[in-house]
């Protein structure tokens, strides 16, 4: 009975599908984890403002946020472990292998996880005990931000690697890394988009948390019956909104460079995002577009809010020069996207921004200058941008589905890499032809400096040194059935970032195909000594 299920199902199945399970858990975790990271930053700013002005309104607000932080930290932690368990069961090969490459970074991340929990606990629960040592208390809270940043950077190393493996030479099977440290892969961790993803998400987290804090303040303003509480929430909301809007305005700068790197190191992902293919378009909707329409709306609202705050000299106004300059950068960003995608996208985005601005003005007027409604709306929209950003990044990776849409063995998830979705314009050629072509360094086979460089002298050497960045050799020799299929497989690997010149690609395909034919000709040994 135990193995009856195993006999019928080659993989563990999850209701709704494994992709849904992982996606849901990952997004649940991200929405909570990102909030926690941003909260730490917002709390420190609030405490500093409160200390400088000797105004307990900000310190009390910081304490309230830190209480939420304590509550959601555990939810984020538990989600993370649920994600780990789900990945272990639903994507065992992937999870086991990536763990080998990132083991030590994940252990450091775990240590940081614990340090953060303890720091957070001390910071909140000793709040009232440390009024005689306020600077120490603020410093304790401020420690959270660099700790979170480092932890976050580490997990982004792995996340970015999944999209842009880059020049990784994770020598898992044979050489245990060139310094003999199994569980650490320098080039996998410091992959092409690691830095961009970290910076982009860091700013996004600060923005997201700031907007959520402002949204909760907005909600409390609606509920407040007393003038003091009303004023407290309005001021706290405005300060949080300011933090959020400054972070938000920095996003397109990093985002642009992120997309730039993706263009060369994650070509298929870039194409999926810009042209809208694969899972980026799900249910007929391009979710990448939706995210940017929401962002455009937020720019319009943010711009008008800052304008009104500056005009009426409200507390915590943002310098309008900076706002206008960065809004202009945003505009150029959208122009660029329009040029890549369609101009329709640009005009609709512009309309969304104008609509957002007009809505903001109306809401401010309706509430006699109070930002409550704007805070609420921006908080909600910000949540969706975080979710959609993460979703789009994951969904832009090439998907492994049958081209005809048929299910294999009755299941819609394929564990091995036999098939990949290819859009019509790229039929027959997996590698995307860029208008300006790839930069030179992509084609050049680069050895690792000051390291033992394996000089491939034979085809076996070549395969052993290049084909184990992301998987073991066992997969590299799995029978495909024809030379054309091998050509497609190796081409796909090249698209993923494996470094092969066209000549080397030919050698690899020829050798593997010959080897497969030889092995097919040898009868199986009945004694089992294979």
């Amino acid at each position, binding site marked *: 009975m135990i193995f009856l299920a195993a006999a019928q199902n080659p993989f*563990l199945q999850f209701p709704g599908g494994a992709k849904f399970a992982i996606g849901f858990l990952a997004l649940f975790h991200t929405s909570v984890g990102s909030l926690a990271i941003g909260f730490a930053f917002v709390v420190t700013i609030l405490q500093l403002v409160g200390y400088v002005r000797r105004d307990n309104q900000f310190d009390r607000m910081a304490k309230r946020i830190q209480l939420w932080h304590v509550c959601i930290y*555990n939810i984020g932690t538990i989600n993370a472990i649920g994600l780990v368990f789900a990945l272990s*069961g639903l994507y065992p090969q992937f999870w086991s292998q990536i763990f080998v490459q990132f*083991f030590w970074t994940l252990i450091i991340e775990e240590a940081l996880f614990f340090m953060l929990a303890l720091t957070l606990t001390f910071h909140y629960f000793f709040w009232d005990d440390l009024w005689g040592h306020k600077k120490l208390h603020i410093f304790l809270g401020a420690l959270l931000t660099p700790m979170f940043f480092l932890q976050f950077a580490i997990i982004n190393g792995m996340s970015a690697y999944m999209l842009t493996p880059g020049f990784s030479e994770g020598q*898992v099977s044979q050489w245990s890394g060139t310094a003999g440290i*199994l*569980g650490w892969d320098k080039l996998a961790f410091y992959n092409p988009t690691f830095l961009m993803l970290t910076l982009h998400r860091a700013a996004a987290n600060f923005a997201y948390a700031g907007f959520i804090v402002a949204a909760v303040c907005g909600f409390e303003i609606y509920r407040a019956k007393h003038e003091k509480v009303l004023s407290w929430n309005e001021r706290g909301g405005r300060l949080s909104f300011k933090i959020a809007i400054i972070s938000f305005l920095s996003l397109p700068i990093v985002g642009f460079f992120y997309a730039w790197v993706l263009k060369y190191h994650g070509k298929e992902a870039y194409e999926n995002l810009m042209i809208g293919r694969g899972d980026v378009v799900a249910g007929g909707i391009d979710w990448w577009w939706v995210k940017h329409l929401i962002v455009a709306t937020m720019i319009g609202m943010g711009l008008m809010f800052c304008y009104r705050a500056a005009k009426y000299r409200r507390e915590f106004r943002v310098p309008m020069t900076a706002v206008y300059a960065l809004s202009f950068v945003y505009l150029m960003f959208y122009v660029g996207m329009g040029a890549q995608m369609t101009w329709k996208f640009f005009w609709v985005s512009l309309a969304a921004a104008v609509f957002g601005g007009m809505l903001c003005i109306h809401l401010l007027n309706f509430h006699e200058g109070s930002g409550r409604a704007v805070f609420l709306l921006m908080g909600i929209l910000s949540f969706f941008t975080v979710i959609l950003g993460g979703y789009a990044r994951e969904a832009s990776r090439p998907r492994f589905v049958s081209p005809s849409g048929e299910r294999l063995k009755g299941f819609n998830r394929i564990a091995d890499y036999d098939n990949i979705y290819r859009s019509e314009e790229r039929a027959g050629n997996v590698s995307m032809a860029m208008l300006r072509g790839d930069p030179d360094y992509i084609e050049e086979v680069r050895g690792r400096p000051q390291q033992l460089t394996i000089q491939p002298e034979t085809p076996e050497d070549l395969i052993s040194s290049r084909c184990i960045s992301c998987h073991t050799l066992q997969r590299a020799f799995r029978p495909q059935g024809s030379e054309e299929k091998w050509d497609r497989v190796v081409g796909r690997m090249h698209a993923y970032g494996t470094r092969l010149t066209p000549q080397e690609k030919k050698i690899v395909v020829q050798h593997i195909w010959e080897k497969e034919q030889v092995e097919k000709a040898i009868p199986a040994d009945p004694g089992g000594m294979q």
Partner: protein
Amino acid sequence: MDLPVIETPVFPRWVWMEEITYSHIPIATLVTAFMLLAPLFEYIGYRWGKPRWDRLSKSLIWFAMILFSPGAALGTGIPMFIIGTYPEFWSRWANLFFWPLIAQFMFFLAEVFFLFFLYYLTWDRWMHRKKLHITMGVCAAFFGYLVQIVWDSLGAYMLTPGGVPLPGVDEPVGWSLAAMLNPSFPFLLIHRTFGNFSYAMMLTGGVMSLRFMGQRRKDPLSENTAYFKWATKTCFTIGFMCFFAMPVIGWFYARVLQEHAPIGFLAMMGGHVTDYLTIKMMLISVFLVIGGTYVVKQNNSKALTAAITLGLLILLVVILRHPPLDYFGGWWRPVSAGIVILFIAWLWLNKGRGDPNRTAWQYAIFIAGLAAFFTFCLGGFIRERMKTPDTVYGEIVKPEWTDVEADRYLVYEKWIHPLYKTPTELDRNRPDSWRVAVQQARQDETVTLTDTEAETIINYLEANH
């Protein structure tokens, strides 16, 4: 499986594994015990109209809240470490228990939700809606206990798989009722439930005694001083009384292990883990003597003293039916009985006498609390060590097994188990020549050994006994 096994610096893998696990388990067990007891205390305070019980309940939950985040963070470290350092074990075990692991994740979420948002944060706001508040506490405790049930089931499987094989790496079983309801699961669960109550409350009593001393120094007549004095007595007494369930449950637990994990049982009863068990028994004696004396002095109650007497007599029965103690010779039975009866008399003599609120007693209670804590720590340690070099008993061996461990396992399995009751008999009844003894046993067909096995066993016995 073609995945490499990652080596760790400084210490071998199993040491790091132990340390990471030990960082999490005391916190988790404390939190679970507090969550189970707090609603009960709150209810008592509500029904009897005694605010001290409410204050005690709130302080338990407040402490659980402080511990929760670091404890959860440490808990995530355990699977992360295992996945990298024991990849094959993890893959196979997570295959077998996939759905229970997902379920415990959902229970955990529910536990956090009830504990944080509906129990802790609403304490003052729902001051006059006690029934609702207590219900939320019960819900939080319920889900917390469900988490413990899942992990105890998975942990018990590692010692008594009960005939359910560990599936292959690519055999996605998902879930198995037989594996979850493995032979030692109910015993481990009940043993750890009462064990958690016992050690958590004794340790809390010990900590409260220090707070009592501090408050008494500041203001001997304040309500705080009276409260901490009461809390010390109450917590310690509850923890002490909960202990008496343990020997009974433990005896049945050991019987199940004897049947379903005989090699592990031999390791514990006279084998390589015996010393730890002996230390554990000594620690139990420490808190029994200190704690028993304190409890009868503090609570001048015939009923309580009678209950302790009954508990000690049951403990005596368990001791008398404890075969490995035959190693000491026949005299230990009357001596044990004498010691226990003398102790019972001592307790009756001390009932209500003397001043248990003296400073010396507060330190003594703290020491007793620590002894209870280390007793608990040793329990898990023994359970894990007794099945070395297996990770899952009889199913998968740990990658860093040594020759000594492998040889010892062979000796337990093929020499001691068929012929002796306990490994201590090897030294007590040592023959002149192990080689001759082994060869004779093979001839008599009392053991079935290959030549290699026989040679290994002879070498091990000659080297170690």
